């Protein structure tokens, strides 16, 4: 009974909080000269770049797999994926572990900047071109002071057949 | 004081349903999978009521009833048997073996609690 009561008292306020929350939080990272953002809710953790096991006949941007506490996780190099050239891995190179489409995937980025909140009015629709990413995978552009953020629909991107991470069913 | 009920049934689903219902109503429940198991547990726990199925492997409910009634502690405590509606013969046998009453399977949780409440309040 006590359980039911507590649920009853909590739920109205939680609904309100969802309604008022028009801001979204993004984890921002750098790739070359550009700054990107991904939905913070998709991010599981951030870790350094270490021992990786190559996988045969994988797309070039799939660097291989790592052991993440017993789970085998594929690692994608976003620089290579976006055609920004082969990255030099150093102590600042970071892997963002994402939880997308029911899978765990890691992406290698140059550096992680911070977590920012964007109000609805700070979001702009995606212009027709001008980015290295297919606009299909861009949710929009965010502006923060003088900075411009490219907000990636990371779930859609990772699940796309172009990534080759998920069995497409045609193979 | 919390009353303790020994629930005996070889069917895990019914036993757990019974246990769940009784626990929900604030009773302490000890589960046993057959008569022998029940007897072993009856000897170590202070049981206020026994609820037993009749048809069980190893030791059936009737034998359990008789055996329990021969134990000092179980001479006077209520023992209810679970039967199916066609078991009038079983009811007679259960009565002879010392059952306090019967409850027909299938039963719903409300009815179970109602009957138990009548016996041990």
């Amino acid at each position, binding site marked *: 009974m006590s359980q039911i009561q507590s649920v009853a008292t909590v739920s109205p306020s939680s609904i309100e909080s969802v309604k008022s929350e028009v801001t979204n939080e993004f984890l921002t990272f750098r790739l070359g000269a550009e700054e990107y953002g991904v939905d913070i809710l998709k991010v599981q953790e951030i870790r350094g770049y270490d*021992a990786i*096991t*190559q*996988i*045969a*006949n*994988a797309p070039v941007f799939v660097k291989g*797999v790592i*052991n993440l*506490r*017993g*789970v*085998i*996780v*594929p690692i994608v190099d976003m620089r290579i994926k976006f055609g920004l050239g082969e990255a030099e891995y150093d102590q600042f190179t970071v892997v963002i572990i994402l939880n997308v489409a029911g899978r765990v*995937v890691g992406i290698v980025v140059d550096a992680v900047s911070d977590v920012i909140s964007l109000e609805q009015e700070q979001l702009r629709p995606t212009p027709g071109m001008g980015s290295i990413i297919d606009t299909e995978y861009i949710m929009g552009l965010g502006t923060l002071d003088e900075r411009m953020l490219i907000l990636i629909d990371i779930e859609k991107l990772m699940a796309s057949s172009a990534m*080759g*991470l998920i*069995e497409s069913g045609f*193979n | 004081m919390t009353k303790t009920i020994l629930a005996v049934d070889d*069917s895990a*689903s*019914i036993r*757990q*349903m019974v246990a*769940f219902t009784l626990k929900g109503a604030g009773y302490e429940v000890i589960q046993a999978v*057959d008569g022998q198991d029940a007897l072993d547990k009856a000897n170590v726990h202070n049981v206020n009521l026994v609820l037993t199925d009749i*048809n069980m*492997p*190893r030791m*059936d409910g009737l*034998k359990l009833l*008789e055996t329990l009634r021969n134990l000092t502690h179980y001479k*006077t*405590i*209520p*023992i209810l048997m679970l039967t*199916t509606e*066609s078991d*009038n013969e079983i*009811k*007679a046998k*259960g*009565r*002879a*073996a*010392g*059952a*306090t*009453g*019967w*409850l*027909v*399977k*299938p039963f719903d*949780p*409300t009815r179970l609690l109602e*009957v138990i409440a*009548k*016996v041990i309040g």
Partner: protein
Amino acid sequence: MSADLEQFYEIFFEESSELLADMEACLLRLDVNSPDLEDLNAIFRAAHSIKGGAGTFGFTDMTEMTHMLETLLDKLRKGELEVRSEMIDAFLKAGDVIKDQLAGHRGEGQADPKLAEEVCEELKRLCEETQTLSSESVKSVETKSEEIPISESISSTSEIISEQLSPTDDSANETYRIEFNGSDLAESVLTHLMSNLRSLGNLDNLTSETGKGHYQLRLRTNKSEEDIWETLAFVVDPGNLKIEKESTEKKPEVKSHHVEEPKQHSSITADYGFFPGAPAAPIETPSAGQQPAENSKSDSQIASKSQTKATAAAPASETSSIRVSVEKVDQMINLVGELVITQAMLAQTASQLDPVVFEKLLSGLNQLERNTRDLQESVMSIRMMPISFVFSRYPRVVRDLAAKLNKRVELRTIGENTELDKGLIEKIADPLTHLVRNSLDHGIEVAEKRIAAGKPAQGTITLSAFHQGGSIVIEVSDDGAGLNREKILEKARERGLPVHDGMTDQEVWLLIFEAGFSTAEKITDVSGRGVGMDVVKRNIQSMGGRIDIESALGVGTRMSIRLPLTLAILDGLSVAVGDQMFIVPLNNITESLQPSAEDIKTVSGEGRLVQVRGEYLPVIALHEIFNLRPKVTDVHRGILVILEAENQKAALFVDDLIGQHQVVIKSLESNYRRVQGVSGATIMGDGKVALILDTAALVMASQQEFV
């Protein structure tokens, strides 16, 4: 409240499946001519338990079917009816229907209500046949009521009983006149009631035809009035019940139990009750306050009688167990896998320490290693199940199929307690069923043919299982006709398969696993149209196993399936290529060697062959397949690991051998995708991921290059 019940559905489903399986096993081993009472009791108990659960959880279709089963079984175990083989058939069918109904409630299909009805009718017919039988054999009594046929058989049977059980002390007997209204009572309830009354003494049914459910009985008994009252009070509304004592001198001394109160409807539907005078019974039932003292007296009488009966139930040995979800076990296996890795990492780090300075730490780590290994073994054993879980279904399969094909077959099983991984148990069932059916259909001959060949008319199919090394071997053998080499070759040519007369027998036998191959002279609906044997082989290979055939014409055939013991752990050899490490499953390795330069032959520039013990084997250069930069490129400077899979051999060229490990298999596909030539991954002692090679795929690919 009903929502609460749902959480117990899954338990009920599992429990019922097990009970059905038990029931079927009992039915199949039941000897119709001398049925074992224990088996009958067990079958009854299974039906009874399912019925109880089904009723509680509201699966009425199952309740009906199990009720019919229970009714007939009850008659059988009480000896009121003799077991006949058609009953066994009906029981088996009923079991199938209940299985379907169960699947239906699980949301895995749909039960056919028509079929259920048919089986129900069948059971009812079997149940009633004997009733008519007994009433025919006895002269019927004039007083019978037409709309309630049950009273007919009751009154007639009572005559036999009254003859058999003529009471020794006639003087003690009293005669009671019993009247009650039974119009709202079910037939089965009445039957029980009547038989209960009959057990008390001589019963005469005086019910008139126009009685409309008003029953009049006369009972001569040495039991007290209370005994009669109690017998009736379970089912008859006390407000409707009248018991009068008729003195032997016919002096009507009337004593009535008629309770003057408004008729509270039908105590038969009362779903609970308390026995008057019983220990701790609350004072509630109308009878409770009436004669407590006398009641307790009659109690002891009945008690002493039924005691002897109850003690007859023999205790059966049963292992105690708990039910745990597979997810929990798998989670535990994963955690232990982690522990093994951590332990290996510690061991590796510690190997660089000075053994003198760190003596205690190192001995502790040794202890840890032993404990970890033991723990791993015992955790893995949780997933192990005896193969009897699979074998138990074949008596039924063989029985049904033999009847259909008009063949006489005995099924023998050996090594049912051999254990293998639960995952494999689930996967092996279908292929094995196919092999058993195939043996029965194509292997075992019809009786005439067998006798003509000087064999016993009854064929034998033997299922056996045993451990061999790190594998489990499951064999299906028959003493049938054996495979016919010429016929298979002929058929293979017809199908355009590449065959030649120089093929070994083993190679010829394996042709039957080719797609679209069937050697049956006529196509039957049993083994299908050659669809299946290729699927069997594929399924077994996907489990990491292989299948072999031995056969002798006229003597029989033996198909052996060899499977790894578990899907989760693998014995492997780690090999290095460049800076990468790979695991090669040990059971695919025949040997490893360092070839001399002259054993290497280059074929048409690209491919390479190596001569090993007179055989030329294709060389698989792992670095080429996986695009790696190897330390050595000359084959004779590296190591060749000779692989054998699917009866083909190839030599895997690697830089170096590292060591043997037992590795925990992890899926690449849970977060990535399938990779050609790789069957999975594992985590090595240093925390790095190593890929496990799909040897069968590699070997097959290497063969294609040279065909």
